[in-house]
Structure formats: C-alpha cells, structure tokens
C-alpha cells in the first residue's frame, strides 16, 4: 500500500518536474527541475528493489553530470534578455524527431517485448551487477567504454587543438 502510494507520488514528481524543465524560462531552473526528476527516478529504482542503481543514479546523474551542466550555464551567464530565441529552422526537425520517438515508444510498448510488467529486480547486489556486467553484458560494456573514450578524445581535440 505504501509502495503504491510512493510510486504514484514519485511518478507524479518525475513527470511534473520533467515537464517543468521544458517550460522554464531560466536555464538554471530547468537544470534544477531535471535534478528533481532524477531524484524521483532514483526513488522509483528503490521501489523496484535496486538501491544500488538508485545511489548510482544520484551520484552520477544528479551529482556529477548536472553539476557540470550548472557549471556551464553559470559560465555562460545567461540573463533573461540574452535567452536564445527560438529558431524556426530547427523547429520542424525537433517536431519530426519528437514524433518519431513517440511512435517508436508506442510501437515498442505495444509489441510483445514491451508487455512485460515492471517487476522487482531478482538479485541486485553490487556483486551480482558486476558479474553480469563482466560476463553476460561484456560487449555492450566494452563498447560503451570505447564510446566514452572517443567522446573524451573528441572533447580534448575541440578544446585544446594546440596540445
């Protein structure tokens, strides 16, 4: 009973803060709304029996990545006057991609694979996650690490050409 109430509360917070993030005028406020959404998601992970994933969500997303976002926004020092205007050229693309994503989600959810009800994770100790990562999911794991490495090298290339 408490779990269901907690689920609806957290889900409502997650959706509301995600929507609020989109409609904020101020970039810093958007950022904070996103942090709140991440927190609600972390709460949902706890309800699904994965406190480890929840803690990682808070440390990595809410803690590290969003702080870097804030850092960049503060460096840009956007004031209300200098807010970037909506560029109509980009708008059609945004709508098209948004629609595509929406259709994909609907198709995915209606397909048999999407019909699985959310269930508590079977065994989510840190050890179990580690074993899974390094045996069953080793290729995706290594691929994503290569992807991140490429992103780092790219960032260094862009920022420090003379290095």
């Amino acid at each position, binding site marked *: 009973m408490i779990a269901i109430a907690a689920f609806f509360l957290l889900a409502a917070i997650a959706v509301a803060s995600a929507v609020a993030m989109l409609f904020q005028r101020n970039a810093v406020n958007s950022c904070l709304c996103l942090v709140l959404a991440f927190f609600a998601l972390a709460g949902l992970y706890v309800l699904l029996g994965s406190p*480890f994933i929840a803690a990682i969500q808070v440390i990595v997303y809410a*803690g590290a990545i969003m*702080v870097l976002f804030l850092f960049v926004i503060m460096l840009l020092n956007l004031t209300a006057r200098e807010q970037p205007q909506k560029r109509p050229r980009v708008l059609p693309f945004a709508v098209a991609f948004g629609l595509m994503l929406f259709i994909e989600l609907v198709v995915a959810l209606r397909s048999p694979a999407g019909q699985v009800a959310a269930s508590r994770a079977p065994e989510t100790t840190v050890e179990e996650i580690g074993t899974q990562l390094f045996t069953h999911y080793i290729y995706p794991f290594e691929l994503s690490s290569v992807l991140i490495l490429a992103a780092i090298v790219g960032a260094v290339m862009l920022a420090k050409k003379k290095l």
Partner: protein
Amino acid sequence: MTGFLEFLLIAVKCVAVFAVVMTGVPFMVWFERKAVAHFQSRLGPMYVGPHGILQPFADAIKLMFKEDFVPPQADKVIYYIAPLIGITTAFLGFSVIPFGPDTTLFGLVKTPLSLQLTDLNIGLLIVFSATAMGVYGIVLAGWSSNSKYALLGALRSTAQMASYELSLGLSTVAVLMLAGSLSLNSIVSAQSGYFAGFVPRWFIFQAPMGFLAFLLYFICGVAETNRAPFDFPEAEQELVAGFHTEYSSMKFAMFFMSEYINMIGVSCLATTLFLGGWNGWGASPGTSYGWIVGLGWFVVKVLFLLFVYVWLRATLPRLRYDQLMAFGWKFLFPLSMANILATAVWISLRAA
C-alpha cells in the same frame, strides 16, 4: 506494540545523532580557534567563559539576532533553499555510520541495539550521494546571490569538488576490495582483531595500499569540505567571502555549520573505513561495558582527525588555483587508480 517501540528507538537514535553533531559544531569552532591561536602563539578567545569556551554560543546568539538581509537582485527561492540543501546533505552521511558495537544498554533492551541509524548494504554509496548533492548548496548559493564574488566562489567550488570527488571515491575502492562489501557495518567488522596479538587489523595496517588509500582519502576529504589548504570557494583575500558573501544571519551560519558538519562527517567516514571504526583494545560487543569503550574509541579517532584538520589549516598556505587542479587530476587521480590496481594484485597474491 513492538512496532511502535522500534519506531521510537529509531527516532531516539536519529535525535541523538543530530543533537550530538549539532552540539559538536560550536565546540569544534571553539577548538579550532583556540588551536590555531596556540599554533600562532596567541591565546584566542578568552573572555566569554573559562578559556572562551562559551564564545561559540555568544557567536550563535549574535548570528541569530542579526538582520537577515536578502539582496534585492537575488533569485529568492533558490537563495532560500541553498543553505538548506547544504546542511541537509551534510547530515545525511551520518545515517549509515556505525558509531559503536551492538549493545543491550546493560540489559535494558532484549534485542541488541545497533549503534547505527540504518545498516544498508550500499551504505558507502549513500554517503557519496550525499557529498555529491552537497555541491548544489554551494553552487546555488553562489549563483542565486547574483554577485560576482559569490559566483566566482561557486564556480571554483564546483570545479574543485567535482574533481576531488573522483579521487575521493576511487581512494575508498581499495577498502571496498579488502572488505568485500559496501555496508559500513561489515567494513568495520572486517577490521576487528589483531596481527601478531597487538597490531590492530585496521585497513591502514592491513596492506600498504590501505595506508596510501587513507592518505588519498583524507587529502580529498579536506578538498571536498573546502578547508585549508584547499579553501578556494571562500578565499577571503580574493573573493571577499566566496559563495556566501551575500548571506547574513542564520543563513550564513547554516553554511558554516554545514562546513563543520561535513568535516565531522569526513572524519567519521575515514575512521570507519580506515581506522577500524569503533574497534580498539577493550571494545568488544560481548561484554556489558564493551560498547562504551567502542564508542569511546570511535570518538577519540574522530577527534584526532578533526585535530589534523585544524593542524593542516594552521600549517599549510593555500595553493594556487591551477596547482589545485593539477594536483587533483595529474597526481591524486592517477595515484588512486594505481592504488586500486596494486590492491587487486595484493589481494590475488594473498589468496594464492
């Protein structure tokens, strides 16, 4: 009925931890002022109470009655919540730290009472998520006050805390590998007993990597709590007061309290991870007085680390900003990575 009693016990424990830490803060301020004064051949506060022991309370009263000024250009909502974020996250870490062995309080309670608020199997990660969120308090304070000094202080602190958090996390990995658990309770029990009958099996003595990890952790902990020689976010010669320049009265005091609570928190965690927690001579959960001795050991170790904090502040000058970044990324980070590798080799060699 038992459910209610359990709830009551948890509530009492929460209040006790809160009260001890909260009263610890003014004494820590007093101790720091006195110790730094004596390091510099001064006397420090002497007028209020014997040897100025009541000075922090006088300061607290003064702060409470000061005008609570809000800069007109500030972002009001964020300006108000920033100190709250700071102090809440500072307290969060204490929820998983074991302060002593289980006890029946001389037979008062039937089931042994654990001197820890909750024993989660991801305990250490809770502490880290609290530290990670603590950055927001400082960043938002600096941004919302709409002042150049505050913003600069906040920017510095973001860069500093985000950089040192990495090495802070990595330095504890060695301990996690040695203990094989993220639960702080099992980490403490992995450190009980003695080598050769008298050298305690604390992680700083268990492996050379444990000692290095402790040094790394403490350096990063000092940086993470923005204390000298890493006190850039509030470098007063350059930034007036840094991120809390525009704060006054109790909101200002809340930043100071969260800084000191964070110091106590880092010391508690260092004690738990590296110095054996409540383990020590005579501290055994079996005997009726063992828990008091254990609690005593824990407090003594934490107080020693807090003294080291003050000692560092009185001894070392502040680094230059680029030195800080270079030190964090080019020295501490590779060293903590190498330490993890060395620990892995050590463990596999020991097992073989």
